[in-house]
């Protein structure tokens, strides 16, 4: 339908006229960096509060406490077989079989698992958002989508203050063509009487583990 291309572009040009006025974009809002680099206690506190607002569970732990926290969470949710990304760090969860996504698990295989344990590319404090970028500890998109229970490990150094901070940090990944997913709380709907109800098609339970760290996983 190459005729469509030329026709649409010609119509757009005709509609705009020979010399359209091109406005400048006023960017007087708080841009990336305006609220600091992130990872500090104020940013981390805000992130934890905002995630909890979505009725996700947040646990703050030191590195050494993470295995215990993961084990307790899986026990509570009765998760025995849990998927992990192909490039997951050596997480250990007692009493739980960690199923590595290598070779890639099919959607049906994922559907039979009790949950998924992943890291993230970064997190945004102001909106309580976890961002996955399809690489490394984030895992493939299907991995963190099909199982009904998502455990996500967030390093405190990876928490940025604002949406502009997050979008700026993701620019390189986007240019490289990585699939990016923003997750803010568990799956939900407001379609019936505008009441937010957790749990439709995505993971219905989201447990977030914020690990105190000084170094960022970001490049």
């Amino acid at each position, binding site marked *: 339908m190459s005729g469509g291309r030329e026709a649409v572009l010609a*119509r757009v040009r*005709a509609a705009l006229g020979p010399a359209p006025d091109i406005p400048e974009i006023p*960017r007087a809002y708080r841009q990336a960096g305006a609220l600091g680099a992130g990872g500090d206690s104020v940013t981390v506190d805000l992130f934890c509060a905002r995630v909890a607002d979505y009725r996700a569970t947040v646990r703050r732990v030191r590195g050494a406490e993470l295995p215990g926290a993961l084990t307790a969470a899986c026990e509570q949710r009765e998760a025995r077989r849990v998927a992990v990304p192909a490039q997951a760090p050596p997480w250990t969860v007692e009493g739980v079989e960690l199923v590595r996504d290598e070779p890639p698990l099919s959607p049906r295989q994922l559907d039979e698992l009790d949950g998924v344990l992943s890291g993230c590319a970064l997190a945004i404090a*102001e909106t309580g958002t976890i961002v996955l970028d399809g690489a490394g500890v984030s895992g493939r998109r299907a991995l963190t989508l099909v199982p009904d229970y998502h455990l996500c490990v967030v390093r405190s150094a990876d928490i940025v203050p604002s949406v*502009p901070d997050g979008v700026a940090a993701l620019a390189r990944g986007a240019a490289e063509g990585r699939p990016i997913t923003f997750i*803010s709380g568990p*799956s939900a709907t407001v379609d019936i009487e505008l009441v937010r109800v957790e749990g439709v*098609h995505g993971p219905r339970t989201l447990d977030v583990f914020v690990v105190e760290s000084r170094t960022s996983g970001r490049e």
Partner: protein
Amino acid sequence: MSKTGFPAAAREELADTQMRRNVGKATSTIRARRAARVAEVPDWEALRDAGAGIKARAMATMPEQLEMLEASVTRAGGQVHWARDAAECNAIVGGIAAGHGATEVIKVKSLATDEIGLNDALAAQGIEAIETDLAELINQLGHDTSSHILVPAIHRNRAEIKLLFEHTIARGEDLGWDITAIAEAARRHLREKFLSVPVAISGANFGVADSGTICVVESEGNGRMCVTLPRVLITVMGIEKVLPEWRDLEVCLQLLPRSATGERMNPYTSLWTGVHAEDGPQEFHLVLLDNGRTDVLADEVGRQALHCIRCSACLNSCPVYSRVGGHAYESVYPGPIGAILTPQLRGLENAPTLPWASSLCGACYEVCPVKIDIPSVLLHLRARVVREYKSGRSAEALGMEAVGRVFGSQAFYERAQKLARLGRGPFVTAALPGWSAMRGLPEIPQQNFREWWHARPSRSVGGDGPTP
């Protein structure tokens, strides 16, 4: 298309008291939630200014942006198609689906595909389009149409939906009154489709030209399912959804969720760029749709309707929409934005009453995240309808001409005032039924200002008048 027009359709809708209760309750809830979430953002007005600027710039540079988007998507392994109108778009999408032997496709909620009647076009080809958004599913099962941009089944309450599901997808099972159980029924019904159907169709909230990234903003996870699990993904995107730069998302992703559902962020936002090895669909088609958008772009005042990011804040804040609901607008784009978008997309002659579907109170402009001046566009379109489509010999035009003559002369004007005092009441009401049905006529005083001025005792200037 529109046959009855807004006044007749609105009168019919207003008789549905259940609908009025449902829509009234929902819009007042969402107004309060939006206001609270917007109030906590210290730079909200600066974000609105930036949003307006980004969209205006995207429109002014649209040819370059679309070409850049095409190049970026192609470079990342996607295929780009261009559709002049609904028929061409439906043929492209249907052709791709048929080429994969599809008998079913799964769909993410998309206003553009509703606008072009894609589901019916696919059905005519023997392909069933399965809507996966909860509200779209409700409307599909109930053979109903959308009444709201964001929550298309908002005219139904939970009792109605519970009964509908029990009679359809839940096969007679009692779901109880909890909304969670209703949502659970949808999850069970669609799970197998997500895991097995090989072709998905989505819309797009934004298409970023410089990176080639497409963005879908949603809540339930059905969007993630559709853009991730099938082998083939087809995205239908109106050409006005193009954003020049990746960084423009830092503005739009703040404005949209707070304005739409009154959340700091919606549960899921998916951003993908072409095709990615071993992750997601291995074939990606982007269809860029005109279907009247370039006609809107050609109107210098009206083109700002294309800035809309489909948040629906203007619907929720509108005193007209929150009473008549969405169906009276006879379009997939209801409410104030629909009143300016539909007549421009379809041609004014096909929706000539919609620019009057407003009291011009201005609430829509105040809440619009990209500052579309809806009242001004409404007035502009009213003027165009009068100029282009109303006869100079109509009763209204002749009446206005007569009024003009009377108001143009002091003698005529003063005589008319005396006449008005005599003629007011049943006589005028009967003479102007269309006018007086919705307006009270002002009381005319026994003595008006001019008469009082003439009758007052004459005084010298600078005499004993009041001192400041």
